């Protein structure tokens, strides 16, 4: 894995990039609104969501059975099935398959699984060029870039940047962009279409992913909106599909649920423009709806380990709709690259550390890349409780277990947490600490050192009040219920004349020297 900086570091750069923040806010904001509108149209959305969750959950519980069913069905339909335990094995299988065809070029339809395993790079090493055919993937590929969104991988680019990329780089990959290319979306799309069409017609091998695998018939399903997928799936002679083992749905009836959940959650459409399904190979007589040769590569790459974790396994229900990215306030500010993975946003924060482990500092920082606001859980069409998994993975990061040794860099935090627990487990110690805080409040710095500096750079800190609630209550009780009276401890600070601390939310504003004896409490019935 390339060395990416940890999330907070990468996010600092992103938050400082005004153009990027603008692009992201606009794009996610628009799609958020569309999603909300089309979801609101369905009065059975909650039931659909529950059905989606349950189908996936049941399938995952019996995954071994369904995988065998898929294998048998694909073979029966004339396809070949390969099992890949990890990225290296999957890349080796695909490279060998392409080599066997004698071709040096392959076209690809959007497949996150192949990005996850770094297939393009592995093919390049073997002298094979992979051409991305999804418009956004094309932009990313031509720009020597990385995707930053599940659905809109080039979300971080605006159209003038796209125009520049097309103009400067398209020629190196095939048909160049026209000289008079403008940054009008229609113009850009036309340039991409002409460029790609040549490629589609000349390529004999295609590599795809799949959104779903229907176990009962061994059918692979790709859902897309540009039609490039359809071209990849129908024109070439050989089709190699790399699919994560969690993509199975048992039956076509089950598939129906997801074909409703996915487009609405993803693009905010009622139905998506192209849904392609293929089962095995075309028979010699031309009957059937598949390619001449079909290979299915079933990819594990950390999924079985994820499945073994009773809390974390729900991440495998994900149908990659990207709804969670579009509502995530952290993603909106940090952008997709900060997550250092093909899966960014909330789902990336829980999936990546499970697939890759938490030994790398970046992966260990991902479970913390969330304020736990819960917006992702609210929109997820298969009800993945992302906050629950985040907290669960944080525990893995700080505690470690047999398979996931404890992450470095948490010693100071662990000590502080332990100390805080000791303090908070004792009302007596807590009260003492409160009084110490109050007595020394004049000495507290307005700017904090160390990690606290990040806070005080942009925010003012609250100040200790004149008296903790617990002390006020004790005084009030001593004086008789509901009528707290008069002076308590002489050292206790008092509000300045005219101040009414109870009026405000917070502690007294406190430029007051806090040594005068306490006056009558401010609150009387």
């Amino acid at each position: 894995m390339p060395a990416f900086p940890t999330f907070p570091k990468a996010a600092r750069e992103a938050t400082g990039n005004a153009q990027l923040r603008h692009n992201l806010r606009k794009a996610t904001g628009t799609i958020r609104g569309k999603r909300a509108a089309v979801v609101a149209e369905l009065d059975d959305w909650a039931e659909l969501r529950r059905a989606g969750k349950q189908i996936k959950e049941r399938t995952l519980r019996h995954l071994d059975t369904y995988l065998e069913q898929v294998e048998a069905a694909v073979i029966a339909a004339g396809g070949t099935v390969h099992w890949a335990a990890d990225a290296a094995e999957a890349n080796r299988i695909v490279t060998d398959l392409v080599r066997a065809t004698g071709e040096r070029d392959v076209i690809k339809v959007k497949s996150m699984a192949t990005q996850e395993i770094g297939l393009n790079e592995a093919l390049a090493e073997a002298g094979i060029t992979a051409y991305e055919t999804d418009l956004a993937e094309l932009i990313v590929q031509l720009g020597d870039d990385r995707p930053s969104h599940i659905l809109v991988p080039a979300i971080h680019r605006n159209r003038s940047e796209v125009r520049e990329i097309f103009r400067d780089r398209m020629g190196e990959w095939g048909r160049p962009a026209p000289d008079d290319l403008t940054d009008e979306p229609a113009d850009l799309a036309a340039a991409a279409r002409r460029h790609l069409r040549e490629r589609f017609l000349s390529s004999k091998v295609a590599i795809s992913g799949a959104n779903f695998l229907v176990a009962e018939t061994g059918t692979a399903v790709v859902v897309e909106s540009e039609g490039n997928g359809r071209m990849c799936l129908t024109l070439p002679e050989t089709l190699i599909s790399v699919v994560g083992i969690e993509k199975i749905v048992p039956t076509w009836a089950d598939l129906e649920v997801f074909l409703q959940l996915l487009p609405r959650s993803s693009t905010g459409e009622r139905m998506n423009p192209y849904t392609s399904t293929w089962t095995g190979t075309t028979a010699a007589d031309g009957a059937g709806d598949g390619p001449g040769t079909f290979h299915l590569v079933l990819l594990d790459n950390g999924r079985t380990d994820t499945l073994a974790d009773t809390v974390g396994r729900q991440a495998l229900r994900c149908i990659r709709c990207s709804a969670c990215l579009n509502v995530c306030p952290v993603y909106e500010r940090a952008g997709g690259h900060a997550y250092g993975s093909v899966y960014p946003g909330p789902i990336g924060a829980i999936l990546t550390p499970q697939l890759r482990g938490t030994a790398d500092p970046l992966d260990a920082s991902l479970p913390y890349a969330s304020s736990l606001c819960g917006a992702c859980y609210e929109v997820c069409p298969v009800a993945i409780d992302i906050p629950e998994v985040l907290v669960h993975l944080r525990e893995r990061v700080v505690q470690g277990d047999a398979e996931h040794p404890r992450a470095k860099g948490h010693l100071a935090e662990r000590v502080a947490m332990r100390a805080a627990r000791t303090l908070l487990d004792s009302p007596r110690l807590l009260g003492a600490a409160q009084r110490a805080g109050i007595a020394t409040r004049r000495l507290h710095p307005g700017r904090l050192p160390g990690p606290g500096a990040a806070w005080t750079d942009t925010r003012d800190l609250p100040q200790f009040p004149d008296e903790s609630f617990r002390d006020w209550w004790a005084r009030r009780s001593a004086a008789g219920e509901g009528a707290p009276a008069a002076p308590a401890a002489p050292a206790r600070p008092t509000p300045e004349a005219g101040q009414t601390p109870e009026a405000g939310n917070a502690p007294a504003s406190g430029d007051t020297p806090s040594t005068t004896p306490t006056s009558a409490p401010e609150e009387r019935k």
Partner: protein
Amino acid sequence: MRVGLFLTCVNDTLYPGTGRATVRLLERLGVEVDFPAAQTCCGQMHYNTGYRHDAEPLARRYADTFADYDAIVVPSGSCAAMVRDNYPRLGRRARDEGRGEALAAHLDPVVPKTYELSEFLLDVLGVTDVGAYFPHRVTYHPTCHSSRMLGVGDRPLRLLRAVRGLTLLELPEKEQCCGFGGTFALKNPDVSAAMGTDKARHTIATGAEVLCAADNSCLMHIGGTLNRQRAGVRVMHLAEILASTESEPADPSSAPAAAGARAAGAPCAPAADCAPAAACAPASTTARGGSR
């Protein structure tokens, strides 16, 4: 009915005004409320940062302290959500680890008795008009844990709408997180600050005098940002607005988080949803003079 007030460690330590307002409000409504002194913290900071085992004794303490009350009122959406959402999980996880049913049996009874303030007022007492008077322009931020984890819905808004003199203004993009998130603010300071800045901008855009919420940790974060910007908008807890009456009106302009207040330090509050810990005591002792 025996009602226990779980004030939360943040409120107890930094925002006692919220506690006093809650007591005044409940007593005005005829509720006899008790503050059992054995209470401390719900354990949210530990739980959410990944220190579940350290959260367990705190949860146990909560359950012990409040076992005998008929209802427990919490003026903090996020701490109430910790109890209602995460205590059952603590119990389940302990059981999964082969530690029997003991923890679950301990925690379970207090879970359904725990109410966030607005829930208690509407669902238990059945009042919407609490007899408050607060003649100011107010906008309301539905904090994430109140609205998403607890699902308080429009309860706080119904209460605010019944306050005499109050003008309620709609907060743009109100459902977006303010960026506090406990230790998130420390671990991801840039994103947290960017979120806080946007929330402050939306707050200012409403033209409100006061931003109201039912969580002081979020208000600390947004208020701190508003303060730094000298925005002139005050933040107030829902309880303080509801406690305000004609005879004892709350005055937002004296709210200490007001613009122009000097930046003052508290040891470790920003690090947590929880109270200051000795471990986080200020590293510097630079005295700062008042700037007023």
